[in-house]
Every structure is written in structure tokens, then in C-alpha cells.
């Protein structure tokens, strides 16, 4: 293997890992508050379409990004209303969101465009072109869109907020023991809403980054291809910790990038097997940590304020 291929692969690993990290950060908060937002795959898909659509009509990627995040927050609000206020089953609610997203994005995309692909402007690079000439580091780190850098820095901020602020402590307490949090005077329901809304916001942002940073187009038929589900696994493997989860996301991103490269390189292995690679790694990683990582104590369980 030539060094060029490896550099190219490393660069792509970061790019493919970035949207996963963004989605994962929101999901970590949501699950730490006790709510598994299984709908992130669907919200990601909506985010991917919204990013493209707004960018297509306005030609402004910043506007597209902000609009998508607002949309994602609204989805998060809906999921919070169902799972926290109405106490619906979190798995079923998530499945519903995902199925709705698959059909919904296909329909909306067909209304938006007659072709199966819409190409738009992508995110700009954060650093000037000249930085890319630095050997190895240049192409790997500096020939990256803004979004990659956001995804690399965000986990540190997220960890700080989770472990070193009032709000982070409150969210952790709510997911572990909502009754104790309530008797300490915390607004449990409100905190859960905030965490779930964040997960929606970041899931949509992740989808938006997938289209506006990576591929630059939207393709109907579920273009997120289960990446939201991979994130759900990454959060478990990462032990509900922002930094570890981000690291796991990078590994998945690397696997994704590797299979794409192997496909185009004309490997003898059928491409369907290569496509399976990231998901296979997910399953193996999950099997490896089961029993060792401890979820928040009320993970996935509804909270009833009347239970004391």
C-alpha cells in the first residue's frame, strides 16, 4: 500500500466519523437523562434532506445548517413529548420516527426534485489551501471541512458540560435516579426534555453534515444507511461518555472509509461484503462490551412523578 492511500484513508476516516460524532453527542445526553432516542436514524435522514433542500433554495450552507438544527430540535421535542410526557415505549417510538423518516424523505425529495440526485454547495475548508501542503498532517487534518473540526472539538466541550457544570450534574442525576433528583428539587421532566431535544438537534446536524460535508447530494431511499443505529451502538460501546463515544465513532468512520476505498480499488471481495464491514465491527464491539459497560440506571424506563 502506498502512503498516499493511507493518508487518503485517514482523511476520509475523520470525514466519515464526523457526522457520527455529532449525532452521538446528542444521544449521550439523551441517554444520560434516561431516554433512549432511537429515532436518531430518522431524524438524521430528515436532517440530510433539510440541509440539501435549504441549501438548494438559498445557496447558503450556514442558513441550511441552522435551519436543519431547528428542525431537529422540533423532532426532539416531539420524541420528548411522546416518551417523557406520554410515556410511550421508547423503542416503538423510535421505530415509528425512523419508518416515517424513510417514507417521508422519499416523498418530500420526489416533490423537490425530479432527478434522484440533487447536488449543492458543500461546507468550505476551515484552513486555507496552503495548509494542505504540510506533509501527512496537511491532507489528513487541514483538508477538512469546518464540520470535521466542529466534530473533533465538540466532544471535549460536551464532556466538560456533562461532568463540570450544574446542568451536566443534573442530567446525570436524572438518568440515574429521577426520584432522588426530584426530591432534591430538580425539574426532572424539564431536564429530560432538554436532553432529548439536544439529541434531535444533533441528529439532524449529523445528517446535514453527511450531505453538506461528505457527499454533497441527497439520494432517496435512506441515504443514512443505518448510521443512526451505528451511533446507538457507539454510545453503548463508549460507555455513555462523550470522549470515549467519539473515539468509537471515529473507529466506525474509519471502517466506513476503508470499505469505500476497497470498493473503488476493485477488490476481489464482493462489494456487498465490504459494505457490511462497519456494521460487523459494530456487532463485534457491542458483543465485546456487553456486561462491562453500565448504563444509566433508568436507561429506557419511563419516569412517573407519582412514584416516590
Amino acid at each position, binding site marked *: 500500500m502506498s502512503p498516499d492511500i493511507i493518508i487518503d484513508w485517514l482523511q476520509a476516516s475523520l470525514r466519515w466519523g464526523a457526522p457520527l460524532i455529532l449525532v452521538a453527542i446528542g444521544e449521550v445526553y439523551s441517554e444520560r437523562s434516561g431516554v433512549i432516542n432511537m429515532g436518531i436514524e430518522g431524524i438524521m435522514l430528515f436532517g440530510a434532506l433539510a440541509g440539501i433542500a435549504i441549501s438548494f433554495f438559498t445557496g447558503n450552507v450556514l442558513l441550511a445548517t441552522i435551519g436543519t438544527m431547528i428542525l431537529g430540535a422540533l423532532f426532539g421535542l416531539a420524541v420528548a413529548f411522546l416518551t417523557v410526557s406520554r410515556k410511550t415505549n421508547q423503542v416503538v417510538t423510535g421505530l415509528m420516527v425512523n419508518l416515517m423518516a424513510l417514507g417521508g424523505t422519499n416523498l418530500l425529495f420526489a416533490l423537490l426534485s425530479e432527478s434522484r440526485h440533487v447536488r449543492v454547495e458543500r461546507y468550505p475548508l476551515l484552513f486555507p489551501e496552503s495548509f494542505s501542503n504540510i506533509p501527512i498532517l496537511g491532507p489528513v487534518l487541514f483538508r477538512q471541512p469546518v464540520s470535521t473540526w466542529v466534530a473533533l472539538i465538540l466532544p471535549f466541550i460536551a464532556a466538560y458540560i456533562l*461532568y*463540570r*457544570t*450544574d*446542568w*451536566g*450534574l*443534573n442530567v*446525570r*442525576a436524572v438518568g*440515574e*435516579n429521577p*426520584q*432522588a*433528583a*426530584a*426530591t*432534591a*428539587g*430538580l*425539574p426532572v421532566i424539564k431536564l429530560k426534555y432538554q436532553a432529548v431535544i439536544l439529541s434531535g438537534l444533533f441528529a439532524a446536524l449529523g445528517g446535514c453534515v453527511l450531505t453538506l460535508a461528505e457527499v454533497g447530494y441527497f439520494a432517496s431511499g435512506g441515504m443514512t444507511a443505518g448510521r443512526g443505529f451505528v451511533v446507538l451502538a457507539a454510545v453503548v460501546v463508549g460507555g455513555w461518555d462523550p470522549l470515549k463515544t467519539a473515539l468509537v465513532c471515529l473507529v466506525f468512520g474509519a471502517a466506513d472509509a476503508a470499505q469505500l476505498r476497497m470498493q473503488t480499488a476493485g477488490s476481489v471481495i464482493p462489494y456487498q461484503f465490504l459494505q457490511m464491514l462497519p456494521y460487523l465491527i459494530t456487532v463485534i464491539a457491542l458483543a465485546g462490551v456487553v456486561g462491562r459497560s453500565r448504563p444509566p*440506571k433508568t436507561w429506557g424506563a419511563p419516569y412517573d412523578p407519582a412514584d*416516590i
Partner: protein
Amino acid sequence: MTQNIEIAMRMEGITKRFPGVLANDRISLDCRKGEVLGLLGENGAGKTTLMNILYGLHQPDSGKIFIEGKEVKIESPAKAIELGIGMVHQHFKLVDTLTALENVILGIPSEHPMVLDLAPARKRFLSLCEEYDLYVDPTVETWRLSVGKQQWLEILKALYRDARLLVLDEPTAVLTPSEGEQLFKAIRKLTKEGRSVIFISHKFGEVLEITDRITVIRDGHVVGTVPTKEATYPELARMMVGRPVSMDRKPRPSATKIDPVLVMENVQANNDRGLPALKNINLTVKAGEIVGVAGVDGNGQLELAECIVGLRKRTGGSIRIQGHDVDRVMADPSFVGYIPADRQKVGLFLTLTVAENLVVKDYAKPPFTRRGVLRYQAIRQHANRLIKEYNIRTPSSEVQVVHLSGGNQQKVVVAREMSAQPPLVIASQATRGLDLGAVESVHNFLLKERNRGAAVLFISTELQEVMSLSDRIIVMFRGEIMGEMDGEAADINVIGQMMLGQVTEVVA
């Protein structure tokens, strides 16, 4: 007017109805400044509901609450905290994975919300620890603390919020006698400072010791309030239960059989966290005797019971029941009657009916099944016989167990476990949470088993009942048997010291 100033808190005509239950029926009481008010009543009498209303966890259907003379509406715990009310629940409200200090500051907005600065909080916390002589390491994760320390932490949490009225719900249930003394010292200091304490309990001894006045609640209403100086034990018991009660040692015929039924040799086992919970336990229980296991909760009693009934793997040693290795005996449920400590999670299927629960050990055998099909007629007949025999109060055998009272749920467990007349009975915290009437009948059932010739292992954290029921008493501390003594001659002080791990003498 001066009288008003003395009253810290007054509740007037508090009524609270839950589906099917009138938990509080026009309850009125008051707590004066600087006093300890005892709230005495059986389980289910409505004490905890009343205090949850005071703490804003429940809303009353009607009634008024006055704090320092002013009428208040307490719609949330946050509001209660603001009004200077602190509450230590019977089941602690601590977040296990957070440190002691994090639990204390939880819900208190810090000066700079973006920086969780623990240093000033730690300083204040440690000074409170010193002031009230209740030390807890602020940096330790809460799940590592003993239950006694968790209790201190709950009290410190309330004091950190500067509670002027502190509600303690059954605080001594989890304490050793010396920790109880420490608690009482802290309570006396609190009242000297002009704070008030509401002390909820169903133990007369400590209520008589620590309180200034006692309000007795029965079936959701106030039976009466008496100054502690004028109160007597039999009078309080009569008020609480509604009839005279006796807590004396039960008379019994001397044992006739002496064959060992349960023999444990060098048994070792781990707890759920993988730490050693039983260290070289050697114990023999003979036919026709009740062996009482005393000790503070969490000193290996649960693991002991689970090892004997095969729910927990041993890491060493052997257990034999009537000479058979326990691992083989477990396949046959008729060998051991087991009353688990957590009847709702381990002892019963709450959503199944009384009849179904009574047959879960035998459902696969005739006459309850034929060719793989359950025969409900036989199951119902069996249930009706046991309901009568064990005096289970239920509308019918077809009612879900979840709808029965705690005492009657326990009777379902006892009936199922005893009806096969097993040679060995393990009763683990069999009376926990039951009212006095139900406690008495559980005691009588166990005594009946003993007189029939069963070997009975009676595990309890209530020293009183261990002493009144046992033929022999062993004391457990940190997974070891500290000593053994005769039930007739046992000295409560010696047992108390052994519960703390201070071996003074071992009476063979």
C-alpha cells in the same frame, strides 16, 4: 399571638385519597419550634403519605398547611426546600453513582452555572459534618457508603439546605445501636438550635426516648397526641394497633428432635458487586429449632439465605440439607420453604392471581396439571384451602396478588412455602414492613413449623423479634458469625456489641 410564633408547622384537615384508599382522613397536627414530634403508626397508617404531602411530593385533596403561622401551598419539593423543610426518606433518595458531595449540592444552583466549583461546597459540608458529629467522606461514590453513612448524608443534605424542620422517616431501621445513639445526639443538637424534627417510627422504645410529644396515627386519622412524659408503652401500642398487644417471648414446648437438617461448612460467597460477602460460615440448624440470625442489614444475611436456597453460587465450602448436597436438592422445591426478604420481587408474581401464586411450586405436577394443561378447578380448590388455613384476607382466589396488603401478600408466600411441610424453612426479613397484627401471625406460623419438627433459620434485623422467637441466636457481622448464644439467656447488650463486630464472649 405568642403561641403562633412557637408553632413551626401546622397541618389542618389534610385529606388524601388514592384509588381505593383513603390514606389521610382529615389529619391535623402541629410541630413546635425546637421539639421532636414523634409520628407513630403502623405501616400503611398514612404517616409517609402525610409527610410526602408536607414535602410537596403529593398534593392533598383538601386541608391547609401553615409554616411559622403563614398558610403555604407546597406544590413541589423545591418549594418545600425553600420553606426550610428537609426530609430523609425511609428509602434514601441518593444518586448512587454520584459522590457524597455531588449528592448534597444537587439541585442547588451554583454561583457560576458554567463551572461546578466544589471547593466552597466541600468546606461547608465538612464543617457541618464536624458540627453534628456525622462524618461522611465527601469524595466517595454514594454506593460505596454503608447504609448508616447514607443516612448521615441524607441528614447533612437537608442541613446543607438549612432545613429548619427536618422529617426523618424510620431513620433507625438501618442503623446499628451505636449509630442510633449518634443520630439521637445530632437530633438533640438540632432542637437546641431551635430547629424542629418530626420523627416517624413504629418502634416504641426510641420514640419514647427521643421525642417531646407523640402523635399516633391509625388507618389514616389521628388517634391522639400525648406528651412523651405521660406516655406509656402499652398505652401507645393500644392506640397504634387498636387493641392490646404483647411482644413477650413466645412460650414453646422443648424440642424433641435433634437431627441436624442444615449443615454449612466453610461456606464462602460474593455479593452482587463481586466482593466477599460470606467468609467461612459454619452453621448447623437442627430439626425443631429456630435459629435467629441477628445483625445490621447488609452484613451477609441476604447472601446467606440465597446460598442455602441455591440462588447464589458459593465460592467455597459445602451446604448439606438432610445429608444431601444442596446443589442436588434444589431441583426439588419441597426441601426448602423460603420466605425471601423482597417478597414483591422474589417471592411473588404480582400480576398473577392468589391461586396461581399458591401453586407456582407445584403447577407441573398432578392434580394441578394433566397432559400439559393446567386444571384450574384443582388449583382453585387448593387455593381456597390455603386461604382458609392461613387466614389470607382476599376477596377471592382470583384476585391479583398486587391488590393485597403487604401482610396478606406475605401470608400468600408463607402458605405456599409451608404447605408442603418442608424439613427446612428459611425466613429472611419475613416481617419487614408488616404491621403488628401481621407480624404476630408470621411469628405464629414459624413457631408452628418449628413445633412440627422443621429446622427454621430466622433472619431479621429487628433484634426484638429475633430474641422473642429464637431457640438459638447467631450474630452476623461483615460476612462472619460473631457469636452464638442460647435464645432464653441472650443479653441484648452482648448482641448489640457483636452486631458492631466487637466480640466480647462466645457462649456455646
